[in-house]
């Protein structure tokens, strides 16, 4: 390596590190801040304190929002997984207008969220579903469905169809083939898809802004209100907890993909 090349390497590394810091800047700012006093935000925090965390842990409305988000995300990810697996399996067969159907199933991911939000808000109002957990679950199921379909389809692509055929010719019933052969084979894709769906639902803000107000307040909706209207001093602590949560999810996804290799 000559001097010039070494210089280039160094510049490359510095650039890469700077961009990486930019990408995860929230961690460097909010984590230290969360250990400051809860009265005002200043950086670096003037003194060490766990006041924000204490306040947060004693705040019933925030816990209620977390519970709502958790329940909605678990249910939405479950329904999206079931529907997504069935759809991915269906897409392996010869189906009329397959390209169109594929595009249709992906469309909730492409249509701008504000449109979906407004459309569902006006539609759900008719059926008393605004501000209810079922309403949110239904909305999030549709929104996360494409992600499950994409991940499961990717696993299915690598799947050898002869295995299922063999099982069928050996006399296994279709449900048996599904549960004993197909499902174990696509398990990893399905779990990854379910985790994605869970994470997306848990973090979904735009639709929640319209669909949740007083009964079924999700965590992002409550955070949105808090950031926009009042900047509650517990926000850095809550953010830190959510960052920790993101790291855990990342490790989980990493473990899953490791198993693959």
């Amino acid at each position, binding site marked *: 390596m000559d001097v010039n090349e070494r210089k280039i390497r160094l510049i490359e590394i510095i650039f890469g590190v700077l961009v990486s810091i930019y990408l995860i800047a929230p961690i460097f700012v909010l984590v230290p801040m969360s250990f400051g006093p809860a009265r005002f935000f200043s950086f670096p925090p003037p003194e060490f304190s766990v006041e924000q965390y204490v306040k947060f842990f004693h705040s019933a409305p925030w816990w209620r929002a977390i519970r709502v988000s958790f329940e909605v995300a678990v249910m939405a990810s479950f329904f999206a997984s079931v529907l997504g697996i069935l759809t991915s399996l269906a897409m392996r067969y010869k189906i009329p207008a397959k390209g169109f159907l594929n595009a249709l199933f992906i469309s909730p991911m492409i249509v701008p969220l504000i449109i979906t939000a407004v459309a569902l*808000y006006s539609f759900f*109002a008719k059926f008393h579903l605004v501000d209810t957990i079922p309403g949110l679950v239904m909305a999030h199921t549709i929104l996360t469905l494409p992600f499950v379909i994409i991940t499961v389809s990717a696993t299915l692509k690598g799947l050898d169809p002869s295995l299922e055929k063999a099982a069928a010719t050996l006399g296994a019933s279709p449900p048996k083939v599904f549960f004993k052969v197909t499902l174990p084979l696509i398990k990893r894709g399905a779990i990854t898809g379910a985790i994605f769906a869970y994470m997306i639902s848990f973090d979904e803000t735009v639709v929640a802004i319209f669909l949740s107000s007083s009964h079924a307040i999700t965590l992002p909706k409550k955070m949105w209100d808090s950031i926009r209207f009042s900047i509650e001093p517990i926000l850095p602590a809550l953010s830190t907890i959510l960052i920790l949560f993101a790291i855990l999810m990342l490790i989980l996804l990493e473990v899953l993909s490791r198993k693959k290799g």
Partner: protein
Amino acid sequence: MGKKKVTRREFLKDTAMVTAAAAVGPHIFVRKATAASNKKLVICSYGGSYQASQRKAFFEPFMKATGVKIVEATGPDLAKIKAQVTSGNVEWDVVDIESRIMYTAMTENLLEPIDTNIVKLDTIVKPAIHKYGIGNIAFTTALTYNKKQLKKAPKSWADFWDVKNFPGPRSLQDHAPFNLEFALIADGVNKDKLYPLDIDRAFKKMSQIKGNIDAWWESGAQSIQQLTSGAVVMSSAWNGRVNVAQSKGVPLEIVWEGAAYDWDLWAVPKGTPRKELAMQFIQFALNAKRQAYQCGKLIAYGPSNKLAYNYIDKARQKQLPTYPDNLAKQFSFNSKWWQPRLNKLNEKWAAWKIS
């Protein structure tokens, strides 16, 4: 999942305790509600320190007295009320709204008339009484500044527009009402001769200050937050919230001169299944002593019940919007003038903002 069960059990326990307390409690204010201790009432108000004061003065005592569970919501915007009423899916039983929203909601037929069999009005001041809403408190929207951020004290809206002598970013509420009045006052219009507003003149004056408005606030808490953090040096703000911040040691100051005075009202969206309970709550919240506790101890707004002033000490009365000296410096916000023009002017406002 185990955790969830525990919380649910705890919740049941709590409910049982509240029910028991209500049953044996000596003060049963509302006749029928006790039988329905598992009932709930959804109330939507403006959040922040204002709603906190309502929680202490009205919501918690009401829950204790009746066993009714009050579910709180914030941000009672007209669109939500309209969506709820027109879909027949009313989730808010009681709303706390500003008078111009009440007028608009009333003309769009979105409110229940106040049931005067339940809500007693004999001690309520005249301007607070309407067919579709009863004034709860009088509030003032006033020029407010952070003493630490300004060397000289501003005295009027003209000073708010004077960027040379009073440098620094400012904030105003993100809508046309009030701001157009303030602009006209800054432009030299007499505060008693504002209406009908000269809209073009007002927008022209607004354009002069636009570049110095750093943020447009959407909630009362936001305006206080910006003033407190020093993000802006002055802003329009609601006097009660300023008062709460002052009592916490934040160096804020109110300019009563040219401020706007208006009513917040209790109203009931049309078609709520808990209409009677909602009326009972309003009656409960209009009680003189409870209003005196809210306005005298928690947040400095003007109570609508005349008798409430008997329980508020003199020093405190001077901080209220309804105190004669304060009242003389202000103008009364004209909701009736605004109501038919509100949507059009809001749209004009949005267009003006991005131009």
